[in-house]
């Protein structure tokens, strides 16, 4: 018995048995040409690797999808009822762009206020004081439970149950203070704030309890523990869902059309209210929402990558020096 190896002869179909150090094959078989890739059902080629499977179904389904997509695009493009020339006429018209700008303002301002509400209430929720914790629970329960549309209508009609805001001489007529825009900001912020509280709280909870215990054992108070230990670690858990939340806020802001918030949808409704070109204007609105949501999604991916759990802070690591390592 000699140690032998099977060598691929280059055609992919036959193997030749040769003397070697690794595999044992009966001496009588040395030099024998073996067809197929196996000897006695065993792969003997030391460089063997599986041939990748072919996936004809991928190509087939791709082709079908292309055909269907082509048909859909063709029927949309040639559908007279969609009035593409009107779409083109309004896509970059002044009122639409103004509405788009209002939508962006509403979303950004509300998100910022919601972030502040979320931070403050999440910290209060961490408090030892049971009154603070109950307040946070109440806030989240109320504003998360109330449909946004209902909340917006309540904010807009606040004057009906709070006629004047302020105290004595320092009070103002609610109706002059609350426009469609301010009512929209208040409603969206309060609603979004409830979700931000939950997101930030989840971030705090994601930090292992041992981190707080270690901080406490060093003599850190609760505030310092939050600032120096918990928040820096929670931030990466908080940021990705916040981006998500902002994207849904961008879309949810279209609800302010019911209170004349002056956003993209409001403007489109005003235009088709007078010229009855409903469908092309809704197409304009859809186009712009998809555009800004796509843009925000890119931002979201960027943030997610930057703050993903696996990433973490990467600073250069000094190489262990030998004399110190052995000391």
């Amino acid at each position, binding site marked *: 018995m000699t140690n032998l190896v099977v060598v691929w002869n280059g055609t992919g179909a036959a193997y030749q048995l040769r003397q070697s150090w690794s595999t044992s094959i009966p001496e009588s078989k040395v030099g024998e040409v073996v067809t197929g890739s196996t000897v006695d059902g065993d792969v003997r080629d030391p460089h063997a690797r599986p041939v990748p499977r072919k996936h004809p179904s991928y190509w087939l389904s791709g082709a079908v999808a292309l055909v269907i997509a082509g048909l859909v695009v063709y029927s949309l493009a040639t559908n007279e009822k969609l009035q593409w020339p009107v779409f083109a006429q309004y896509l970059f018209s002044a009122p639409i762009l103004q509405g788009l700008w209002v939508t962006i303002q509403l979303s950004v301002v509300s998100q910022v206020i919601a972030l502040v509400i979320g931070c403050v209430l999440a910290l209060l929720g961490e408090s030892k004081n049971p009154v603070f914790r109950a307040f946070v629970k109440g806030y989240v329960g109320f504003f998360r439970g109330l449909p946004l549309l209902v909340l917006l209508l309540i904010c807009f009609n606040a004057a009906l149950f709070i006629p004047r805001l302020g105290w004595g001489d320092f009070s103002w007529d609610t109706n002059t203070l609350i426009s469609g825009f301010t009512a929209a900001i208040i409603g969206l912020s309060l609603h979004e704030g409830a979700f931000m509280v939950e997101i930030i709280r989840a971030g705090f909870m994601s930090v292992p309890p041992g981190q707080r215990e270690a901080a406490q*054992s060093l003599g850190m108070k609760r505030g310092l523990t939050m600032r120096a230990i918990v928040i820096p670690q929670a931030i990466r858990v908080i940021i990705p869902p916040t981006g998500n939340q902002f994207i849904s806020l961008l879309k949810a802001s279209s609800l302010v059309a019911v209170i004349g918030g002056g956003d993209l949808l409001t403007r489109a409704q005003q235009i088709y209210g007078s010229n009855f070109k409903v469908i092309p204007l809704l197409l304009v609105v859809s186009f712009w929402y998809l555009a800004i949501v796509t843009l925000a999604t890119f931002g979201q991916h960027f943030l997610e990558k930057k703050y993903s759990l696996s990433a973490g802070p990467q*600073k250069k690591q000094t190489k262990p020096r030998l004399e110190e390592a052995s000391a």
Partner: protein
Amino acid sequence: MTQKQPLVTIRNVVKRFGEVEVLKGIDLDVMEGEVLCLIGPSGSGKSTLLRCVNYLERADDGYIKVDADYAGAVVRGGQLHEASEGEIASYRQRVGMVFQHFNLFLHLTALENVSIGLQKVRRLTKSDATECARTALADVGLAHLEHSYPRHLSGGQQQRVAIARALAMEPKLMLFDEPTSALDPELVGEVLTVMRRVAERGMTMIVVTHEMRFARDVANRVAFMDQGKVVEVGPAKQLLDTPSSERTKSFLTRVE
């Protein structure tokens, strides 16, 4: 070892988790400069007692006194009152703690882990804190890894950083909660070596451990706990070699 007055006094400490009484009236004294090892089966209350000493758990009855301060309490008008957050924090500064799972701050480098307490709690300037932290890290043999994050360190290295972090605060008492239980066997030695050095320098230590050799070699006294009670306390060799209680005997035959 010259024994002075007790640095730690534990009196009638009771701790309940709901219905379960985990500590059923613990009395223990630890002298200044003494190393006390707590041994016993899991669930016997060793770790809970240690956590009570650092006030990570609040004892339901009894009191714990370290030097002139009470864990989570202050004396006012001859009566113990629940301490304020600031008083608890300043008490904890004087009691160092090392955890089973290291609990290094994951977002900070080894050096920052050690310096953060110096800077934010002891209020040293940043450069002083860093300087002190460097010395503390060098002391546990990790000067070359000061810029590494915990996840790049082995368990043994992480635990040595954790010891340096606690020691840098210059505590009067060090608590070790099963410091080698989460380590691979080949990494246990380096941590025990560091702990041995700390003991040799005269630090008062309470160590919850399953390392009987460490207890025999380093501890002055050993306390055996079972079912929330201290069954027996005595000089290390005497308790480990000739235990007087049957329960201690059967525990020791099972672990050794």
